[in-house]
């Protein structure tokens, strides 16, 4: 478990309090752009690694528009690589045909695994930019206004809050352990198992106290969502411009070297 990674995710909500042009856009606009981006990324053929390169421009540009440093923010997307690795771990074995990549013959399975990794990192990076510029709760509300079931939206919001609690409690446990074991002599699977057990017990107790606080203030099982506001010209302009950019990055040969590389590696 990496407490720092979770804490970093919670820090994204802090970034969402910014006042940039991107922050001021309706979260629904950003969510639609994020969904469009995800569709564009997923539609890239399984061996077309160079075709993904232009799409990197979209989250980088959005991060820059929000006033974030793109690289440190997008670097937080690495946990998505773990998921992609799990899903595509057997690709090199299942897809042994050979393709030429920069003069080297490699298994097409390795290429498709690389494409999966790149897709996961791109989509996760875009999700990070969206959360950092809107806040998770507002994005979830927007998902509800797109027709997602209320119970699903609410579960997402509660899951995010529980992840925050888990992060805080794990930070405290880790600090307590590090301070009393500076030479790292007592670390091992037994201690880790006990810490994880303690972490679950503590985070559940904390979640219970927060639930009690919610009940005290009239919570009856439904979180109040944000009211929809009418879109302004800047929202429509951002949606049109964003869709155009995503389409151009996906279908136009914007990066010549990527296009040439793509032509060479078609199996």
């Amino acid at each position: 478990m990496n407490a720092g990674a979770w804490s970093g995710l919670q820090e994204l909500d802090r970034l969402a309090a910014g006042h940039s042009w991107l922050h001021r856009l309706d979260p629904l606009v950003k969510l639609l752009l994020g969904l469009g981006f995800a569709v564009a990324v997923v539609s890239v053929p399984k061996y077309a690694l160079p075709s993904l390169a232009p799409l990197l421009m979209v989250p980088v540009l959005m991060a820059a528009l929000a006033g974030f440093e793109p690289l440190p923010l997008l670097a937080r997307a690495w946990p998505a690589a773990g998921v992609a690795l799990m899903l595509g771990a057997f690709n090199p074995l299942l897809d042994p045909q050979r393709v030429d990549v920069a003069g080297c013959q490699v298994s097409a399975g390795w290429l498709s695994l690389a494409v999966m990794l790149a897709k996961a990192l791109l989509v996760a990076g875009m999700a990070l930019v969206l959360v950092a510029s809107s806040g998770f709760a507002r994005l979830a509300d927007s998902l509800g206004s797109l027709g997602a079931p209320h119970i699903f939206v609410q579960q997402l919001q509660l899951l995010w809050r529980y992840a925050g609690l888990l992060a805080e409690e794990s930070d405290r446990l880790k600090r307590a352990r590090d301070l009393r074991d500076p030479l790292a002599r007592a670390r091992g699977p037994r201690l880790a198992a006990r810490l994880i057990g303690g972490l679950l017990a503590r985070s559940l107790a904390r979640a219970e106290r927060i639930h009690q606080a919610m009940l005290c203030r009239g919570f009856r099982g439904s979180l109040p969502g944000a009211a929809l506001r009418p879109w302004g010209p800047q929202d429509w302009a951002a949606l049109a411009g964003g869709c155009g950019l995503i389409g151009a990055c996906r279908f136009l040969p914007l990066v010549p070297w990527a296009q040439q590389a793509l032509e060479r590696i078609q199996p």
Partner: protein
Amino acid sequence: MSHHRLVFDRVSYRYPDGTLALDGLSFELHHGDSVGLVGANGSGKSTLLSHLNGLLLPSQGSVSVGDLPVGPGTLAQVRQHVGLVFQDPDDQLFMPTALEDVAFGPRNQGMTQAQAEAAAMEALRSVGAEALAARPPQHLSLGQRSAVAIAAVLAGCPDFLALDEPAARLDPRARRRLITLLHGFKHSKLVASHDLDLVLELCPRVLVLKEGRLLADGDSRRLLSDPDLMQAAGLELPLSVSPRGMGAGPVI
């Protein structure tokens, strides 16, 4: 129907592990009362507060708010009348921004978002925290979070305000601001605290608990100055009345 009366009638509570936390407690609070609740650790203060709005229900006896008996069928109504401020503001604040958190209660009372936000801003203003409205609670100082937690409860316009260790972990200046703030409230208040000087300043009346039983109920200056009573309750005299504090009046 008046809700400005809160009655504990022979309330006992036993936790599932068998611990008897409250043992036959009876007392009443009336409109405008400001009452301190003191006792050693484990004396039942937090358990008592949890009975005020039905987070816990008595094993024996009854609690009523005005004409409403606190029970499974009346919790929603009772919780509109009794606001509980938790000891740790982090247990209470959970929305992305202070404004949304304070507006959570009013939204649950059926207000529109605009009405709820107006009520929330008013509550934040009343605790001097309107400038914090857009800030995420986890990035506020402890004193600021305590103020926002109180605003979150005030926004629901409760008749009774119950506070669990409101000054715990606050620095002296934040503690002083909190005392001034609470002095200004016209709500009926029940303040559970180990800070006996705070209780002396805020509460003319005090309930002294020991092992779940009511050891004394009366004038706070008289009871909290009684060395034998304090000894029996597992407490010490407040600094402002003890020789250690050189009898120098309220500590500020």
